[in-house]
Every structure is written in C-alpha cells, then in structure tokens.
C-alpha cells in the first residue's frame, strides 16, 4: 500500500523551526491529558498498561497453580484456595487480558493508522470503553480481595448459583461491565472500517490485520450480549432465587452451558482472529511479498467468525446433550478447521520465494504458526466425538486451549508488539534480548503444555487440587516449563520499559514495510497524518527488481 503524498515533512526529531517534533506522546503532559484523552493512540496505551497488570496477576496465579501441582498431594494450599486460584486465573486471563488484548491495544492504535484515518469513528466512546473495562476490572479485583470466586471461570450452574458461597455476583458484575467495553470497541471498529478508509483504500486493499479485526468485531457485537444475559440470569437465581438453572427451583442446569458457550466459544475467535491478522502482517512484511491468496485469508477470517457461532455444542458432548446434537456440532466443528487450515497453508506458501529476514517479530510469527497448528489439530481431535468422550475436561483440553490462547493469541500479541513497538514508542529494543525472548517463550511454552496433552490422555482431570501419584513426573515437567515460560515473558517486560528511555530512536519505517502506518513518523503525530494519504495499490506491494520498481515506499 502506498501513500501519496506522505505524512510528516521529515522523519527527524526536529521541526523546521528547530524545536522538538510534536507527536502524540509529547503533545500534552499530566495525568489529565491521559485520563481524558480521546486520541486512539493514547487510549491504546492505557489499555496496554491495564491489560499488562491483569496479565501479570493472572500469570502469578498460574505460577501458584503450577507450584501446587508439583506434588500429587494438595500440600501448598487448601483446596478452596486452590479452586479460587484457577478460577481467578481463568477469569483474569480471559476476560481482562485475552479478549481485550490485541483489539484494544494493537487494533486501537493501528486501525486508524492503517486505513489513513484521523482517529476511530467515536473517540469518546473509545475512551468510555476503556473506563468500562477498568471499572469491570476493579470490581473483579475487589472480589478477589474479598474471598475471590471458586466456580471455575465457566460458572457452571447450579454450582455457581446455589452451592458456592464466594463472590460470584461481584465477579459477574465485573465481567458484565467489561463486556460492554468489548461491544463498544467492536462497534467502533466496524463503523471506522466502513466509513473512514482513505481515498483509494478499497476493501480488498485493506491490510489483513484490519480484516481480522473486522471479523472479531462482529463476534464482539453479536456474542457478548448473550453472555451478559447469562450473567443476569445467574444473578436472578443467586440473589432472587428465581429458578432458571437449578432443578431444585425448577430450572435446567444445561441451559446455562448453552448460553455460556454461545458466547464463550466465539470468544476464542475474539482472541485468535486478531492474532491471525497480526501474523499475516508479519509474514508479509518479513518475506517482503504479498500474502499468498489474500482473498482466501481475508474471507477465512469472516468464515471463522460466522462458523464460530455454530459450534458451541462441542463443549457439551458429554454434558447430557442429545447424542444427535453432538453429531451436528461435531461436523460443524470440523468445518471450522478448514478456514484455519487455509490460513496456515497460505502463510507457509507466502514464505516461498520470499525475501525472509529473521527479525524478532518474524520469530514470534513462526512460533505462532507452529503452536497454532498443534493447537488447531488437537482441537480437531476434540471435535471428534469418540475422542472427546475420553479426554473431555482433562488436561488434554487444558493443553489444547493453551496452545490456541497462549501459543496462538499471546505469541501473536507479542509478535505484534515487537513489530509495532518502534511505531508506538519511537524507540527500538535490543535485538539480541528480543530474539532470545522469542526462543525462551517458545521452548518454555512447549515444555509447560506438551506434557499436559499426555497427562490428559492418561486421564488426569482438570481442576484437581490433588492427583494420583503416577501423574507426578509429567506435572513436574510442566511446572518446570512454566518457570522458563514466566522468564520468557519477563525479558520483554524489562527491555520494553528500558527501551522507552534508552532505546535507539526508531525511524519511520524500520522494517521497510508497506502499510500506511509506516508512512507517518514514529511516533505518529496527534493527527496521525499531516496530509490525507491516498492509496493507489494493493497491500504488501513490494518493489520487485524483476518487474521494476512500481511504487516507492516511504517518504
């Protein structure tokens, strides 16, 4: 994608008057300038800080869980504490880190830049969504300090409505409020992508990152209200004893699972589709060529979003659902694997005859492809009725969804963060340490979660505080791997913070990428572009020496 004319007059740090260049970070100072900002770039940074806090808290709980599981006996925590730990780990990681994750940070920062817009369509609503997220998060943290919750992040009824005594309602309110933040973000993205594209930027010239976020936004808008309703019904039964789910009050316990998974399965795609969008950008940029089969990859995102709404019943194969319903959900789940496979094959084919650099973001992207492939294929196993009936609710499924949500979504998030960090902060990070972090995360991840596939097939159920001694060896391996993985996450935290002050200054386009966001300065000015960019070519159009330079990249 080419911009003519381009952004800032000079990539240097000084204006023609000789003073420091004004950009979105130094345009205003003080707490108020951040908390009342309507600049999508600043709101993205607010999100970056808040989701990092929740990621750290969720990670800390994971560490405690793995410590407890290093021995078969439940000897480190009491069972009720252990149950709170894995519940809060799930709640924080899913609702307050992974779901907002890439859209609210990278999407927020990049979508207007990528489509050549001044901001999102509704800047105030964008700020509101961060406030809703924060209020929801604070409710949840408050509940954490007041006894936590021990239902599992899935809140299955009637356990959650009439049997546990922990802070189900407070956490429910927290998730309910944060849900609106997700809906508003999705809405903002959809309107922005429809209405605010630069002249010449047709749908099929959009970066695949934008396609991924478009598909994600559809899920956020259509799916989130359903989980909100499920939470309200839990509150109605728990607080007012209106019988909805508990058979003792005349309810149906399985109904909750339908409502819950109708959102929570598509929610997995809220986590993975933006990540896939990131990977498409990285693979194209670091191979210096267009994504193989652009339209297939773009429509695969939409296909996944649509099919994703039709497969929730595969969480309930053994839940008392009719076995014929299981058959339908099984075949539909198989179908979701096809667009996912298309993406993986197309990324691989993009590498063919590319000009591939081994920069840090690319290493994360390759890690993603490997881990997502294993996560996806084990997902196919779980969609197979006869296999699921054995490994359902065992460590096999824990391993599977961590390969998707940690191996997939977080690898994509970190890859994206490393890719756009120079744009976001105007600084570079150390090459050696960042490559090392990609390696350590990849190794640590596999040592942590691969043994869990075997544990699951051997029959170790999930959410077990103590377990039979023959499972110990694999659990110790997993705990050891978690230590490495935790270290792998700490390294980027350190050098990212370091780079903000000491990192070398980043040029406007350090990777030689083609996206519009690279046509403006690093960090971008408040207005994103000083003149309206005009797009004249498809995305990822790199000058080919064989065909002669068609376009000029950069300033």
């Amino acid at each position, binding site marked *: 994608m080419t911009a003519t004319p381009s952004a800032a007059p000079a990539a240097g740090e000084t204006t023609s008057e000789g003073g420091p260049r004004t950009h979105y970070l130094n345009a205003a100072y003080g707490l108020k300038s951040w908390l009342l900002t309507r600049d999508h770039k600043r709101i993205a940074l607010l999100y970056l800080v808040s989701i990092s806090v929740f990621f750290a808290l969720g990670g800390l709980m994971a560490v405690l869980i793995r410590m407890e599981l290093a021995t078969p006996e439940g000897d480190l925590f009491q069972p009720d504490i252990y149950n709170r730990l894995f519940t809060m780990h799930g709640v924080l990681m899913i609702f307050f880190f992974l779901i907002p994750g890439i859209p609210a940070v990278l999407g927020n920062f990049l979508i207007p830049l990528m489509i050549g817009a001044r901001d999102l369509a509704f800047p105030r609503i964008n700020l509101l969504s961060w406030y809703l997220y924060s209020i929801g998060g604070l409710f949840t943290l408050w509940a954490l300090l007041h006894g936590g919750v021990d239902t599992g992040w899935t809140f299955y009824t009637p356990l959650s409505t009439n049997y546990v005594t922990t802070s189900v309602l407070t956490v429910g309110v927290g998730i309910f409020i944060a849900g609106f933040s997700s809906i508003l973000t999705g809405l903002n993205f959809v309107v922005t992508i429809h209405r605010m594209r630069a002249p010449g930027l047709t749908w099929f010239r959009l970066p695949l990152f934008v396609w991924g976020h478009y598909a994600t936004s559809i899920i956020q808008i259509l799916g989130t209200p359903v989980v909100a309703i499920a939470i309200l019904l839990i509150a109605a039964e728990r607080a007012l004893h209106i019988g909805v789910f508990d058979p003792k009050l005349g309810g149906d*316990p399985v109904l909750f699972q339908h409502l819950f998974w109708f959102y929570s399965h598509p929610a997995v795609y809220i986590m993975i589709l933006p990540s896939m969008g990131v990977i498409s950008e990285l693979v194209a940029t670091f191979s210096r060529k267009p994504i193989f089969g652009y339209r297939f990859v773009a429509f695969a995102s939409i296909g996944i979003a649509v099919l994703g709404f039709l497969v929730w019943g595969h969480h309930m194969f053994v839940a008392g659902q009719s076995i014929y319903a299981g058959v339908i959900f099984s075949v539909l789940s*198989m179908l979701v694997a096809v667009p996912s496979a298309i993406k993986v094959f197309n990324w691989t084919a993009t590498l063919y005859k590319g000009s591939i650099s081994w920069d840090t973001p690319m290493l994360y992207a390759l890690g993603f492809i490997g881990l997502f492939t294993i996560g996806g294929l084990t997902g196919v196993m779980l969609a197979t009725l*006869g*296999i699921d009936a054995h490994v359902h609710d065992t460590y096999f499924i824990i391993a599977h969804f961590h390969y998707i949500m940690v191996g997939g979504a977080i690898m994509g998030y970190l890859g994206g963060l490393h890719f756009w960090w120079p744009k976001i902060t105007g600084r570079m990070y150390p090459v050696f340490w960042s490559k090392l972090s990609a390696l350590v995360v990849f190794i640590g991840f596999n040592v942590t979660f691969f043994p869990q596939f075997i544990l699951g097939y051997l029959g170790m159920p999930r959410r077990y505080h103590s377990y039979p001694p023959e499972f110990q060896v694999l659990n110790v391996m997993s705990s050891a791997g978690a230590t490495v993985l935790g270290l792998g996450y700490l390294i980027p935290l350190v050098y990212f913070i370091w780079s903000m002050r000491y990192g070398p200054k980043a040029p406007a386009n350090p990777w030689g990428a083609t996206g519009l966001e690279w046509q403006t300065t690093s960090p971008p000015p408040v207005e994103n572009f000083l003149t309206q960019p005009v797009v004249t070519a498809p995305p990822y159009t790199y000058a080919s020496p064989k065909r002669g330079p068609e376009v000029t990249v950069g300033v």
Partner: protein
Amino acid sequence: MIPSSPLLPDQASDVARSVDHLMLFALSGLVVFSALIAILVFVFMVKYRRKGDADVGIDIYETNPKSHVLELVWSVIPLALLLVLFGWGTKVFFDQNRPPADAVQYWVTGRQWMWKVQHPDGRREINELHVPVGRAVRLKMISEDVIHDFYVPAFRIHVDVLPSRYTTYWFKANRTGTFHLFCGQYCGVEHSKMVGRIVVMEPRAYEAWLAGEKTGASPAVASGEELFVAKACNTCHRPDSSARAPILNGAFGTQASLSDGTVALVNEDYVRESILTPAAKVVAGYQPVMPTFKGQVSEEELIQLVEYVKSLKAASGTTAEAGK
C-alpha cells in the same frame, strides 16, 4: 492395577481399544500435517533468507494460474480427512453411549463429594464399584446436588451426571484390575477428592465377594415396595383400584396417554418426575390430586421406587396405564 505405561492409560474395555485406534488415526494426521508445515517453514526460512537489504520477495500468486488450484487442494484434502475423522468418531461415540440389550443395570448417585453405587441385588457401595469381568454394566446415574461426571479413563468413558435427570451410560470391562474413577466435572471445594475405584473381578471372585459381603441389604425392588407402603402410595395406586390413580402394574415401558392429549413414555425419568412433580404429566382420565413428594424422598429412595414400579408386572386382564 493403576496405569503403568507412561504414555497410554490402561485399556480395559473393547471401547477403550477402539478409542485408542481412533486417536492413533487422528494423531498420525496431526504428525503428518505439523511435520509438513514445520519442514516447509524451515526450508523456506533458510532457502529464501534475505541476502541483500534491498531484496524483495517474488509474488507468485497472481502470475501463476495454478494458485487457485492449490488453494482448492489444501481446502478439499483436509476437509475430506476431517469428514472421515468425524464419521469414525461418531461411530465410536455411539458405541460409547448405547448399552447392549443384555446390560445389567447399576444405579449411581453422585453428591458433593462422593459416589454411591447400588448393585442390582440392592447392595450398596461408596466410591467403589465391584463388577465381574465381561458383564455389560448399564449405569443409571443422577446427582443429588450439582453436576458431577463419571469418568473412568481405563474404559475411556466420561459423562456428566446431572441433577434432576437420569443419565444412562455403560461399560464392559474385558480384563480384571482396579481402575480410577474420577469426578470429571468441577463440583466444588473437594472436587479432587470425589474419586473412587472400579474393581473388575473374575465372575467367581465377584460371586464370592457378593457372598462374603452380606450386609443384609435387600434388593432395590424390596426396599421400593416397603417405601411404597410407607409413603402410602398404595392407598391410591392399587391394582384393583380404578378411581383415584392409574394402575401401575405393567405400566413401565408403555406409552401413557396424558390429559393434555399428548403421550409420554413411561421410563425412569417419567416415574421420578411423577413422584416429585405429579401435576406435570397427568394420565388422561385422572384428576391431579396426588401430592408432591419433593423433599420427602431422597434420590436413592427414588431409585428404589422406580425399581419397584418397574417390577410390577401386568396382571392378566389389566390394561397398561401409568401415572400418578
């Protein structure tokens, strides 16, 4: 015999073997595809690594007319394999779910945090189930509180046990041994303590165990009959009565015509519901006069009553009807 193999759990039923074969098929697909991707990625990464700063990749998609064929190939081949896996998996799943006709019924009640088992002869166990090898065991299961899950890895069977509804499942052990029974659905504080053992014995040893464990327990049918009298069910549900309540003899397994014009199969769930919520499905021709027994009978007593109703054979000349 707790699992000894480091990679495979005990395989103690024919169903377990067929699940393992299915898994092996899926696993080989996984290995082939991930190896393919990994090798291609590595080869391309090395072969096409950037040599000069100004190098760019060569876009082959637009120039090569075969690109679309390639897209089709890697959509259709995975789809075909997925459908094979789906079909095979469904077949195994039906085997897991459908008890054979000769299966012997055992009752299982789950509660926070224990399993209670009732043998056909009325014998009861807690967190243990002794069965003879080679016997098809049909499990009728219900929970007294939250959702539990009956999970025996050695048989590759895993099914949620719900409150308010009987779940039917089955297994047939093909070798003796002691196998884990886990609660597979998170059920509260002591979830990981809701574990037990399945003890599979030689038939003769099983008989000896039955004989040696004389506890004076009476069969579920007999306990059910006592309850039937104690709860005064028999004052209305009398074989000779035709006034207040339907005759139960021979009713089980038939279709009952209901007062709202529909019909209902008289099975375990129907009998249980009719005891707890009599007004829900009233047999045509009767008034909804029966009081509810909700809170007055436990799940285990309900099982005994169900077994008793089941045992009532039709006297000659009685019409098959059921109800409250």
